[in-house]
């Protein structure tokens, strides 16, 4: 019943710790203009704007889309603001695609951003409220116990996380937009970096970045006329579950397993590891690569670490993961999910430059958020579904 939808334009800013040269409107407009240029269209062609970002407190503006209307060419158009915790970038892309798939619009601009330098994310995540217990842990403190749980049950070698961190930073050196460009990255350097939240070391953690990512989604009619390659949306899926309840597995939650199974079913995929050529997975702390390889049903339970260990997830492996350098190399939080979606689309369009996987025809984009409880994913392909 749904109409076909294709990604015809992608634009990203350079990711760095503080973009002091631009305001928030300047930041989002930079990404949006690049996406329009890639799509070969103008502001006038855009029928609706969908914007996503993580909590408003990260910049201290309530519903910032309202003041960003002009910067995003949204005046006298429909504008939606999505917020689904860390998965928001992915969800924003899915909402934008839905507007085309539902036949409501022909061209939709989707933008996600974060300007972390204008506030303090760990503060914003740690506010003590009068009626609930504050964890005052930030994200790293929250996720470290889940990683320890994973290591205990899988028996993964303790240096698995270090290997992920090295691999993703090496990939980032091939992506000029990536925030971290660590020329001297090495196993020893990561292993010797300070332990922040045991077992997560400083260099196994994502940076705090400013940045924006934009995409233009188009109907089949419009996409068929594009001269540049199109990434076709094959399937999208989302799942959420509450943060805490008795019996919940927080390490590999049921929401990720249900989400993966439904996504592959919709995309007609039965052997994901073989049928998907590469993946951009939301890995804010190194250990989440093996965890999500299991959570996304790419490999058997307790064996995700083997993929990392054997080099399967490297750029030249059989299932490359985070070719762009991933969240470990650039993390404008609200945009990080959309960057995964955009980078997966770049791969199947063959436009990923030095971090291109040869012959990528089908790619997975993934985002998660909250206490490992929000999942949004998609499959894009170089051919129509």
């Amino acid at each position, binding site marked *: 019943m749904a109409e076909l939808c294709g990604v015809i334009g992608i634009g990203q800013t350079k990711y760095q710790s503080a973009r002091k040269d631009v305001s928030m409107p300047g930041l989002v407009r930079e990404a949006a203009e690049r996406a329009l240029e890639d799509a070969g269209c103008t502001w006038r062609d855009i029928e609706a704007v969908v914007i996503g970002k993580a909590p408003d407190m990260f910049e201290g503006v309530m519903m910032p889309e309202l*003041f960003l209307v002009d910067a995003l060419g949204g*005046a006298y158009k429909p504008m939606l603001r999505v917020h689904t915790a860390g998965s928001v970038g992915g969800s924003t892309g*899915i909402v934008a695609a839905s507007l085309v798939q539902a036949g*409501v619009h022909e061209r939709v601009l989707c933008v996600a951003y974060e300007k972390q330098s204008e506030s303090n994310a760990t503060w914003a995540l740690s506010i003590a409220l009068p009626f609930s217990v504050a964890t005052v842990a930030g994200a790293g403190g929250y996720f470290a116990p889940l990683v320890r749980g994973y290591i205990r049950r899988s028996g993964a070698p303790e240096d698995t996380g270090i290997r992920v961190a090295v691999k993703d930073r090496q990939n980032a050196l091939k992506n000029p937009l990536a925030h971290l460009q660590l020329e001297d990255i090495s196993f020893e350097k990561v292993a010797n970096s300070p332990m922040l939240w045991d077992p997560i070391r400083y260099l196994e953690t994502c940076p705090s970045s400013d940045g924006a990512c934009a995409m233009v989604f188009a109907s089949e009619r419009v996409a068929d006329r594009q001269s540049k390659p199109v990434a076709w949306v094959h399937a999208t*899926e989302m799942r959420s579950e*509450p943060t805490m309840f008795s019996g919940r597995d927080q390490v590999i939650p049921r929401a990720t397993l249900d989400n993966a199974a439904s996504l592959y079913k919709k995309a007609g995929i039965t052997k994901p590891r073989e049928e998907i050529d590469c993946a951009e997975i939301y890995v804010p702390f190194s250990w989440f690569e093996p965890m999500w390889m299991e959570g996304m049903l790419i490999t058997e339970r307790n064996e995700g670490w083997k993929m990392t260990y054997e080099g399967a997830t490297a750029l030249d492996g059989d299932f490359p993961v985070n070719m762009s350098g991933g969240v470990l190399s650039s993390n404008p939080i609200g945009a990080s999910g959309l960057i995964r979606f955009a980078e997966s689309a770049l791969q199947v369009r063959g436009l990923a430059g030095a971090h291109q996987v040869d012959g990528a025809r089908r790619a997975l984009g993934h985002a998660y958020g909250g206490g490992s409880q929000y999942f949004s994913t998609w499959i894009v392909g170089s051919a129509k579904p």
Partner: protein
Amino acid sequence: MREVAVVGFTQSPCMRREPDRNEVEILIPVIHELRKSLGFEKESFDFVCSGSSDYLAGQSFAFVSGLDAIGAWPPVCESHVEMDGAWALYEAWVKMQMGYADTALVYGFGKPSMGDLPITMALQLDPYVNTPLWPDAISLAALQARLLLDAGLVTEREMAEHAVRDRKNAKRNPFAQVKGDFQAASLLKKPKLVSPLRQHDCAPISDGASAVVLAAGDRARELAKRPAWIRGIAHIVEPQELGVRDLTRSRSTELAAARAGIWKGAVDVAELSAPFTHQEILVERALGLGAKTRINPSGGALAGNPLMAVGLSRIGEAARRIWDGSASRAVAHATSGPCLQQNLVCVLEG
């Protein structure tokens, strides 16, 4: 367009200050009652979408706890907008149009009493230029009202009469917060709150939640005797800067109304969520409503204003008039941002 209808609606009472419960505790009974009324106690919805604001709760990711009101497993296909629940309903409607869902649960919730709302709303403005001056929400609306009065486009009496009408209608609404019989002449003798606005010109601050169920085609016919079919739904945003838009009309409401097809037939009932009397007048004009339309039978936003749920409640209230047969065509309106910056119009038919 796929046939999609509003088949269920529940709400909490609008309260100036909910003393005991947090946001999700206000929401839980609303959703439980809705599930019960439709026989959805065990069944899950194909899609769930909500609207709320972290800044009302004073907490990042405040909406996450809303999931506690849905239940634990199975995990739900779910999304959230940092907007009024009316826009969450729009997202759900889109998912149903693409054939992704046959049923959807939509909810909105907010507890603005925890902070100083008019000042909190100043955080919606340009953070580099306007917010540092802390223009509160009532003062911005007052500037707009002053423009309208000076241009002779509205009178203070007309504004007071809108408050009188809405408060009178609200007498029949057990969920409303401000209700009763008032006289315009005596309201006009009251002191000004922020000139030219008086207390009666401003919507109350309300804690509350509401929830709606949408269903498509035959599923809707199973769940409701007389489903309220969504014949058109559209929303439009304007630039925020007050100096670059015409504040004496609501251009975005006019555009959304046209897209939603409001003028294809007579409107029996309209439910408006304008938070100030002069804005209610502007919205009525933008929608082209005349004497034949019953406006705000629930009392509208001026009688109960649970931010982030108030627009969704208007859709629910309009649907109720379709269900009970008192209207065959109804319109609901939702707004967001300073001085009616963003507006949504939904046309329902029996």
